[in-house]
């Protein structure tokens, strides 16, 4: 349950990078292509300095690093000639990270020393998880802007609890068959509570649509699994078939090679299946999202994403991680390149939500609770 929920936050966060949206300079009906102007070389320099400072400060710098990273990706994402901006306060992120590190330490220590206490801590963590998800999403959107207008998140912690209790229970008693319903509800919770200025966004996906993606993914994964297994069998036979007959006994080296090939095949399988699911789901959600009169069209393709992820993973592995900044930039570029914004009434008529900004700043409790849990 815990792992599932964390997976969902990540899925939601990856979308929110491009959330929000905007307007053209003229009030003419128009279509805008989302664009990303960052480059791998430039992000590499930011990444390496961030990494060094984070390590030599034993992690204390990492919230500042996160702000720099987010600013880089936001400010390089453009719609209709205007860029996004990120305003996260590193102090709030540091607070969130300290709490998260303490929770993780409590989890792993109790797991080592006291299994009974571990169950209690695990229960406690799953209890505050909905709160953390709501906070993380709220923090992210409140600190994102486009054309000087902030985004908002109106989801309540109560709403999150109800959703997880109700749909979590349903998922549990149906042994996971109803998981797509929980997934859909989480997407609805995130998108329908999000706003750009005073304009709320709206998601209309049916349970059938969501179940469709899950079922297609299952069939896909079976098919891909069979194909990869057969291909692996052929490869093994080609490499070791004659060898093992002659030598009689398999050598240790052979076992290691078989292990490496098996891991590579499994990773390839995972990348293909995940790319299929992610592209289908991202397209479905964007295509059914409205922001006022604005519509979106996402046309990601599984084979594009899979080849980007697979080649990036290979290069990152070969370079001991140093290729990562180029990989990250390439992914953002792909996400931007596949997103279109339709604005029949232009993008000039959004109004800032001044009221909830004042409310948030005036309330000291909200201020004290300004914590970010998004990793």
């Amino acid at each position, binding site marked *: 349950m815990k792992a599932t929920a964390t997976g969902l936050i990540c899925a939601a966060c990856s979308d929110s990078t491009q959330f929000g949206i905007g307007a*053209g300079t003229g009030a003419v009906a128009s279509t805008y292509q989302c664009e990303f102007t960052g480059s791998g070389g430039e992000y590499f320099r930011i990444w*390496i300095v961030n990494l060094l400072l984070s390590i030599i400060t034993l992690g204390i710098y990492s919230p500042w690093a996160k702000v720099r990273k987010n600013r880089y990706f936001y400010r390089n994402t453009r719609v209709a000639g205007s860029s996004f901006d990120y305003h996260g306060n590193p102090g709030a992120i540091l607070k969130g990270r300290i709490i998260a590190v303490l929770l993780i330490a409590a989890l792993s220590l109790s797991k080592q*020393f006291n299994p009974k206490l571990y169950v209690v801590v695990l229960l406690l963590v799953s209890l505050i998880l909905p709160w953390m998800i709501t906070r993380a999403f709220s923090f992210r959107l409140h600190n994102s802007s*486009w*054309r000087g207008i902030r985004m908002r998140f109106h989801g309540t912690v109560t709403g999150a609890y109800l959703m997880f209790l109700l749909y979590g229970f349903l998922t549990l008693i149906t042994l996971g068959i109803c998981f797509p319903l929980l997934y859909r509800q989480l997407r609805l919770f995130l998108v329908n509570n999000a706003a750009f200025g005073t304009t709320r966004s709206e998601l209309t996906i049916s349970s059938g649509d969501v179940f469709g993606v899950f079922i297609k993914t299952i069939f896909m994964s079976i098919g891909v699994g069979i194909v990869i297994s057969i291909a692996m069998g052929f490869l093994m036979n080609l490499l070791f078939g004659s060898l093992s007959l002659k030598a009689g006994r398999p*050598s240790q080296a052979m076992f290691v090679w078989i292990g490496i090939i098996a891991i590579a095949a499994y990773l390839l399988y995972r990348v293909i299946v995940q790319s299929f699911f992610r592209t289908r789901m991202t397209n479905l959600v964007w295509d059914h999202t409205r922001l006022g009169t604005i519509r979106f069209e996402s046309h990601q393709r599984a084979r594009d994403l899979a080849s980007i992820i697979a080649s990036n993973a290979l290069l990152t592995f070969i370079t001991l*991680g140093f290729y990562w900044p180029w990989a990250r930039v390439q992914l953002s570029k792909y996400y931007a390149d596949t997103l279109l914004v339709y604005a029949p009434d232009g993008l000039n008529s959004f109004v*800032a939500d001044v009221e909830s900004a004042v409310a948030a700043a005036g309330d000291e409790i909200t201020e004290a609770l300004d914590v970010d849990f998004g990793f």
Partner: protein
Amino acid sequence: MSTSVSDLFLEPVSGHYYDGRSSRAYNVTFGIRGGSCRISGEGIDKTIPLSDIILSEQLDKAYRILRFGDGSSCELPDSLQLSVIFEGSDLRDSFVNRLQRSWRWVIISLLLLSLVFFAGYKWGVPFAAEKLAYRLPFTALSMISQQALSTLDGRFMQPSKLAPERQTQLRERFAGIAFPQARNIPLKIEFRESAMLGANAFALPDGTIVFLDQLVQLAGNDDELVAVYAHEAGHVANRHSMRQLIQSSIVALALAAYLGDVSSLAGAMSGFLLQAKYSRDFERDADRYAATVLRTNGLSPRLLGSFLKKLEQAHNRRSGSKSDDGVFDYISSHPSTNERMKEIESLSKP
């Protein structure tokens, strides 16, 4: 050295102005003169003192965003031009941003980072783990050990099939072994049977040493078992398992921070490779300890080497593979038997 802001000058350039209340983009020109900037166009005409500006940092292609006190803002395409103007003034880029913009500093960072990684891995982590391991109270060691033993008992090990007299005989023999230094953790001997683990023995942090039946049967004489006992006692005395646990936790954490967003599997795999070196270092350390103990008791340190050879042959028979020393040193948790025998051999000479 700081340039006065009143000396800054910028010919008007075109950009976008946002009033902070609506998403309308105004096409404006932006110029600087006499300590303030002027924004004009499409019905906007504002003069704002430069001290009232929050300037976003320079990036290659991203627009520069200037935020004003009243919530309005400006987006200017030419990032470099502004940097040149503001260089040396209060509005120049932050120290970190200037580091990130210079390839020279980036390469220095890269070198420093490699140095920190290397030194931390080679000396920092083992040092911290050693300090920490000796500070842990005995109750913590015993809790972890009992937890581990009951897990193993449930899944991989059964009660020993050795005759009780044989067990008592071995216990008495081990109890008679003298140690060169006083031991602060008392040793406790356990016997178990395990088809899965085969001929093996291991030590837990609280001083429990577990002998598996197949290992006892493999030994030609009890002196060889004393050698194994001395080796395991070395693991206990120098708190190897605790240190290994702490070291692998630190390595796992560091890798999660570094490779975390790449892939958790890649992190786990490299963690496994990196921890193997620590484990091999501990094995060598325990071998040296065992050699001293054996000599103290009038036994030859060669006993350990010859028994290791025997163990290796037994394991190879079981897995049906031939020995492949050398290639696997780097991924193996133990040094190769040949290497260990050579080292023990050198320790045998007085």
